[in-house]
């Protein structure tokens, strides 16, 4: 069963490759880190709001965000450096 990407398709092949890799990297993250990343990056919530929504301490939300972001950076660094 083919999974549908969470990101909109892009016209630029490099940009599309980055979004595909980003979607795959997000899928490989633990769900708690993925939820915090989604709420912070694409919903624009603060750590306090994320903590309230997920019923976790703000420091926990921040640490999950930091760990998830490091994993994404490790996986997307080649593509990111190439596009940049």
């Amino acid at each position, binding site marked *: 069963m083919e999974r549908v990407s969470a990101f909109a398709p892009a016209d630029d092949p490099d940009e599309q490759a980055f979004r595909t890799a980003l979607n795959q990297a997000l899928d490989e993250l633990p769900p708690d880190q993925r939820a915090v990343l989604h709420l912070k*990056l*694409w919903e624009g919530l603060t750590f306090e709001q994320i903590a309230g929504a997920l019923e976790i301490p703000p420091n926990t939300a921040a640490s999950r965000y930091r760990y998830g972001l490091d994993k994404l950076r490790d996986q997307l660094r080649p593509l990111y450096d190439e596009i940049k």
Partner: protein
Amino acid sequence: MNEPETFENRLARQPLRRVPAAWRAEILSAAEAARPRVAARSTAEREADWAVGWRLLSARFPLAWASLAALWIVLVGINLMLPSPFVRLPRIELGGLATFEVNTPNPTIPPAGLRPPAQTAPAHVPPDAPARPRSERRREINLGALGGWLPFNLFTS
């Protein structure tokens, strides 16, 4: 601007796929339909839950509940059979205010143990006893404290 902020901004700029309007309406309607079932639970339903919980608890440990009830009944029976812990005092007939004053200790007279030494009887001192040194008197007191245990007198032999 440093690299982490650039990377975060880069991620945040990636547009998410828009959920089709039909899906969104369907999901929201389903969520709206499910919400009142959870929120609008009446008091009777909650009490029914308590009753079900107690019933399950009592049905799960019938022997323990029966033992507890039997123990409680035995304790109540023992308590009823034992005499009352409260002692019934004989009734005192007070003839009047005068009787009451006689039976009540006078607050102006202190108890015997608290009376000043001047009120106690003075020790008998022979009027013609010769004055002796204090060391000899102390020795007599110490020997008297032995209660006659010594078979002889240390100071006269």
